[in-house]
């Protein structure tokens, strides 16, 4: 178990270093930072001086090492555009994105598993067929279109829900501003969460359905029925648990993409999160923010992957090889 965790952590470190290399190259290849910082009017002497002061004349390896060691202490430099430390900027925006991703991720998982199990058990029923058809739309429509359609129906025509922003937010210590605690905050969350989670939900639902149909055909399900176990015990105790083993991986990875791809949803709904920050930074070639965002997303994926592997380990006893198979 310990060796397994250590091995996975080591792999994660390698992945993060690779991403850091890519993020670091951004500084060198997306324009000259000296120009961005001093502007057109600076003299050549000023430029040379700044270049020296910033250590830009050091060898590549030294610069990369400096970048990584600063990144590890959370120092990604100062945003060109906003003249604020990048880490501060991202941390102030992160709660918005995390709350949105968490809500849509949980909703996608719950509804995805629920619908998936339902459509697998009631195969051929009219409601199942309808859900499957509607899910096709969820898979095929692009996210921004779904967002715009939802805004049109629920914000413009029906006027039930706000069309943009995060509503009223409340400070809950440590600089975390939450929208969960106010009425307008919760209302504002609904449309973006649906938009962000719909694709993931349909994906999880289709996966659960396919896996469940497969599992229901398994011999151990037939044997469970032959022992007279109730339908409930067979479907939810025996079949669902086996179904969830592969679903966990996909769901975990999807949670990563929910955070990463919240860019589109945040743009459509003017959601003040990290994604929107990133898009604006791209527009102004704000390289430090872009690099930090890249590292952040990579970190999210790496951590989630690690958690998924550990979950797998907990759910499936066959992976726990600490006890050697004692056969006869």
């Amino acid at each position: 178990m310990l060796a397994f965790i250590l091995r996975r952590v080591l792999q994660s470190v390698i992945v993060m270093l690779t991403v850091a290399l890519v993020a670091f190259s951004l500084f060198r290849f997306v324009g000259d930072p000296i120009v961005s910082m001093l502007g057109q009017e600076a003299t050549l002497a000023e430029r040379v001086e700044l270049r020296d002061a910033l250590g830009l004349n050091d060898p590549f390896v030294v610069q990369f090492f400096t970048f990584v060691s600063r990144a590890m202490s959370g120092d990604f430099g100062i945003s060109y555009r906003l003249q604020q430390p990048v880490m501060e900027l991202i941390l102030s925006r992160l709660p918005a994105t995390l709350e949105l991703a968490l809500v849509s991720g949980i909703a996608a998982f719950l509804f995805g598993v629920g619908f998936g199990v339902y459509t697998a058990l009631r195969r051929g029923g009219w409601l199942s067929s309808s859900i499957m058809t509607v899910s096709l739309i969820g898979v095929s429509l692009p996210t921004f279109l779904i967002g715009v359609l939802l805004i049109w129906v629920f914000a413009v025509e029906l006027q039930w829900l706000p069309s943009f922003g995060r509503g009223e937010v409340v400070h809950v210590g440590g600089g975390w501003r939450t929208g969960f605690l106010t009425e307008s905050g919760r209302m504002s969350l609904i449309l973006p969460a649906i938009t962000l989670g719909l694709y993931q939900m349909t994906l999880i639902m289709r996966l659960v359905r396919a896996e469940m149909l497969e599992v229901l055909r398994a011999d151990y399900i037939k044997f469970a029925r032959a022992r007279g176990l109730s339908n409930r015990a067979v479907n939810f105790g025996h079949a669902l648990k086996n179904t969830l083993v592969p679903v966990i991986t996909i769901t975990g990875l999807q949670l990563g993409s929910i955070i990463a791809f919240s860019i589109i949803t945040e743009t459509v709904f003017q959601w003040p999160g990290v994604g929107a920050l990133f898009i604006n930074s791209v527009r102004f070639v704000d390289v430090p923010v872009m690099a930090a965002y890249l590292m952040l997303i990579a970190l999210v994926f790496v951590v989630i992957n690690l958690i998924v592997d550990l979950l797998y380990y907990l759910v499936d006893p066959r992976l726990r090889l600490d006890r050697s198979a004692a056969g006869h």
Partner: protein
Amino acid sequence: MMTAEPLLSVRDLIVEFPTRRGTLRALDHVSFDIAKGEVLGMVGESGAGKSLTGAAIIGLLEPPGRIAGGEIRLRGERIDNLAPEKMRRIRGRRIGMVFQDPLTSLNPLYTVAQQLIETIRTHMDVSEKEARARAVALLDRVGIPAAARRIDDYPHHFSGGMRQRVVIALALAAEPELVIADEPTTALDVSVQAQIIDVLKEICAERGASVMLITHDMGVIAETADRVAVLYAGRVAEIGPVRDVIQAAEHPYTAGLMGAIPTLTQTAPRLTQIPGSMPRLNAIPQGCAFNPRCPHVFDRCRTQRPELIDRAGGRQVACWLYDPATQEVRHD
């Protein structure tokens, strides 16, 4: 067997599969009895309907397969038309089933203890602790060494033979009166097949449970069963005490089957074989299903289907050769 009331009585059982190109009849008027404590062997080629008969009895036919006629009675009470919930209570409690492949019969994510206790508590009103004690006793009885310790292992910690013992323990957990064993040794190593059959037979004998042993292994039948039913193309060809059927088969198909078994004493240059193969369900010939392959075929076999005819010694055979009318005409 002419004993009082059979434990299980199957009469004219018909199982059909509706398909786009017409309805296929997979079991056609299958009738047999199993007495209390008796081991009935059920033999036949692949597709003859052996497993289907077992699935129909325990009420687990896979849709679209359905019982289209006939009766199944357990101690005189009809069980083929019970509501699903009532039938569920019979499964495991009164009829247990052992499947072919022990590697896939157990849920890999639950320990043996969890699966046994769940089964026991589904059917019996006992506490968790009592159920566990029963489970350990069962595992011990089916020959799992150090049962009290091994019970908390997962199925993948056991070998194939051991897993089949666990499967038998599960099937017998709620003390059923009838155990349907569907090719219980086919997936196992030859060296453990005999042990598994012995365990199954012994425990059922102790408890007075009857066994319906589905197999295509005549050797297993010969050593284990009291009576044997031979299925061909979804119909019963012959039923009788094992010794009689093996030594003096009456139905030409059974005779052909027995001739195809190699023996240690005879040194025949070639094993006999039955020409042709079993008809597909959509092309079962008129009259006797075996008539195109039968060496003794005559006109009546091609037009009229033979019913089971009672013979001496509690035997039954579905063949016109044994019809009194035929014998008068043929004088042989």
